[in-house]
């Protein structure tokens, strides 16, 4: 910029709108002096205001301005700073905002995002009638504490410091050096905060006969530090994000696609249900079956069901394979059903009871099945899996299904294993496939014994 800016305040919509003697007036003038001192480019500066009388402030500055919801000004400011790091972002929030938006105060301090928070702290909700806030001193009289405030005032500085804030200052609007402190807060890298104590001449000052010197007394009585409370700079979040995540990011690999059509015996839409326990890799194994079917030239959907607990309870995947587009993704009448655990049985018992004779049910041989019309193939899935890998039971089961049913070519199955699984997982799947021939034979023996 070539010309010096004498003031960042503008009269465009009139003079400042505050009550006579209101601390906000002095706070904004101190902010103006700080901006004049720093000569920031107005087009690269934004003042974000919270709700309350202080929320009227942003439109009186020649910088960008944004006035949002109660308690949320910090969140908008963080979004702006993260998206556009070159901006100087200043938040004006009252003590009310520190209450309703307390979590955002903690989290901006914790993350250390480079915004400057100026709290216009006048111990009450000045705009809505002077109700008590998180910063109202003990025994303070307000419309909501008519017999005196019983709640301890929150030390905003200590709170911010506990959450990790690097630069924290407490002052009053009567301080001569407030503009310099604000300028320091703005230039300080990382999150900085000034808790600025001031007078609400409409409410709190009147109902509590508060005088200028009382501010310092209240601080002393409550062990609230006056002046610089913390100066412990640490790395700023946005800068770290850019160096750690963005600068070192590798371009994403192109997604692996399937072009092969390695053969299948599917003439119509076919439904395969796999029921087991959460943590048994039901979804992964079903996914492999799906990818194998795609390698075989089929369309596939995989609908999943599991409880909100992750490693316990059931996990059921419904795989539909079809030569054509698949619409309805649930399976009302399964063609194949794999059951590997008690959890799976518990969840699908009523479905198993209704399976038609056209369905083949591959089941871990130790499970007690309800009556069903389905063709049952009992397999020592658990015992086989134990020999391969603790978590391989579902892979053993789908290998047995592929081998026994012939719905897709073995080439398609091995193609999917090598193309989509990580080497260690692929080895397990290949061993499962290897074991499946013996398994099917064993299954037939179990069946004939049952007969």
């Amino acid at each position: 910029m070539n010309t010096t800016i004498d003031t960042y305040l503008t009269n465009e919509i009139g003079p400042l709108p505050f009550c006579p003697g209101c601390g906000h007036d002095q706070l904004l003038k101190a902010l103006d002096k700080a901006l004049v001192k720093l000569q920031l480019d107005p087009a690269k500066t934004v003042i974000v205001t919270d709700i309350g009388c202080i929320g009227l402030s942003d439109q009186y500055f020649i910088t960008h301005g944004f006035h949002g919801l109660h308690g949320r000004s910090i969140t908008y400011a963080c979004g702006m700073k993260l998206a556009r790091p070159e901006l100087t972002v200043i938040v004006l929030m009252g003590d009310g905002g520190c209450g309703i938006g307390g979590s955002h105060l903690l989290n901006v301090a914790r993350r250390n995002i480079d915004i400057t928070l100026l709290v216009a702290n006048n111990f009450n909700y000045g705009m809505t009638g002077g109700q008590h806030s998180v910063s109202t001193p003990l025994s303070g009289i307000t419309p909501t504490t008519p017999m005196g405030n019983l709640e301890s005032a929150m030390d905003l500085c200590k709170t911010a410091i506990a959450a990790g804030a690097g630069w924290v200052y407490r002052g009053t609007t009567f301080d001569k050096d407030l503009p310099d402190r604000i300028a320091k807060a703005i230039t300080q890298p990382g999150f900085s905060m000034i808790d600025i104590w001031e007078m609400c001449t409409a409410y709190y000052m009147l109902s509590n006969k508060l005088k200028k010197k009382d501010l310092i007394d209240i601080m002393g009585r409550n062990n609230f530090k006056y002046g610089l409370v913390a100066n412990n700079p640490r790395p700023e979040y946005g800068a770290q994000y850019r160096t750690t995540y963005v600068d070192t990011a590798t371009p994403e690999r192109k997604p692996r696609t399937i072009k092969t059509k390695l053969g299948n015996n599917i003439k119509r839409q076919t439904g395969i249900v796999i029921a087991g326990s959460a943590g048994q890799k039901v979804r992964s194994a079903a996914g492999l079956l799906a990818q194998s079917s795609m390698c075989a030239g089929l369309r596939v959907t995989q609908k999943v069901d599991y409880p909100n607990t992750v490693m316990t309870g059931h996990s059921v995947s419904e795989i539909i394979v079809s030569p054509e587009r698949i619409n309805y993704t649930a399976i009302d009448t399964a063609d194949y059903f794999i059951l590997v655990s008690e959890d799976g049985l518990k969840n699908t018992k009523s479905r198993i009871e209704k399976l038609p004779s056209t369905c083949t049910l591959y089941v871990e041989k130790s499970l007690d099945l309800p009556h069903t019309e389905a063709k049952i193939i009992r397999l020592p899935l658990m015992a086989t899996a134990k020999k391969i890998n603790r978590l391989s039971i579902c892979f053993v089961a789908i290998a047995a299904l592929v081998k026994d049913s012939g719905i897709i070519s073995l080439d398609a199955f091995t193609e999917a294993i090598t193309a989509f699984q990580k080497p260690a997982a692929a080895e397990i799947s290949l061993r499962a496939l290897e074991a499946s021939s013996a398994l099917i034979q064993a299954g037939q023996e179990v069946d004939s014994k049952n007969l």
Partner: protein
Amino acid sequence: MGLEFIEGNEAISRGALKANCNFFAGYPISPSSSIAYHMLNKLPRVGGVAIMGEDEIASIGMCIGAAMTGAKALTATSGPGMSLYSENIGLAVGGEIPLVIINAQRQGPAIGSSTKGAEGDILFTRWCTSGGQPMIILSPATVTEAYELTYRAFNLAEKYRTPVFLLTNKEICLTRESVDLEQVKLPRLVNRTRTTIDDSCFSNRLKALHEVPKFADIGGDQITRFTTSSHDEAGYFTSNPEVIQKMIDHYAAKIESAEEDITLVKQDIEAGAEILMISYGITSRSVTVAVKKMREQGYKVSSLTLQSLYPVPRTALSKALAGIKRIVVPEMNMGQYIQEVQRLIPKGVEVVGVNKMDTTLLSPDEIIERGVLS
């Protein structure tokens, strides 16, 4: 080109990236969480920013802040998170802030069944904030459509300067399908029209009520000051009733006058049909099967699938009504969008809802039995 096997949530994130989304903030919630994982993983690779907020309010707040500086922002949640978004959605409507919001529906009310599908948030999403201004809401039926409609949602958000919702469902978000996203024909990418240094901020807003104002980035050369309070065309606070009414009319006019531009429907009209199925989302796939079955049995039946739910595609709906005596509206809720249909139909046309909210999909047979045979 070839087939991929991906879930709806990945398709949504891919659609967002295809639309040049460069900011994401979200809070984990089933079944939307993996959208966040994809964005957190992918955005830094293209120079964007993705962050997990401390809660839903912070997440949408950060998106709004980023969008005001010019970013294309995305957030994703489910019903409980929508409740927390509510106030900020109103801010985004009033501030005419482009933003895409994914509502991955799950069974409610409240916590409900966190890993089960539902379509219970249709009217909630439509009326999710105070004031009652029009919304743009799209609803995909497949993983491929989740990709396409997310991309389109960004275009609409930019074009109309408004939050746009993608109303999806666990049954699309977490269902994997074989898809070929490269085959999807996408419209040209739209970016918001920006002010030039000669324009005063929001200068075009009130030339015509339906006109979409130009956008001035916070941090751009054109100084922009915007207040969430009732404001005039310059973004300044106002208490003038005339100006306030004008702005309210403007929010409505810009969306409602664009009904036909926003409308996305798929028609399967059979000549002479007296039955019309109206459906959206995952349930429309059951309808496709039901319609095929019914035609095989000799019924004449038409089907209208809505990909855009709001603004209500009145023109397309009215057109599909010709000769229809019975309308069937199957929904995974207790009857929500059917109310929009009932508003439009002439006397003498029967409207039947097929409703279920037990977390399972409506099957084609249920739709035929309860919608047509009963």
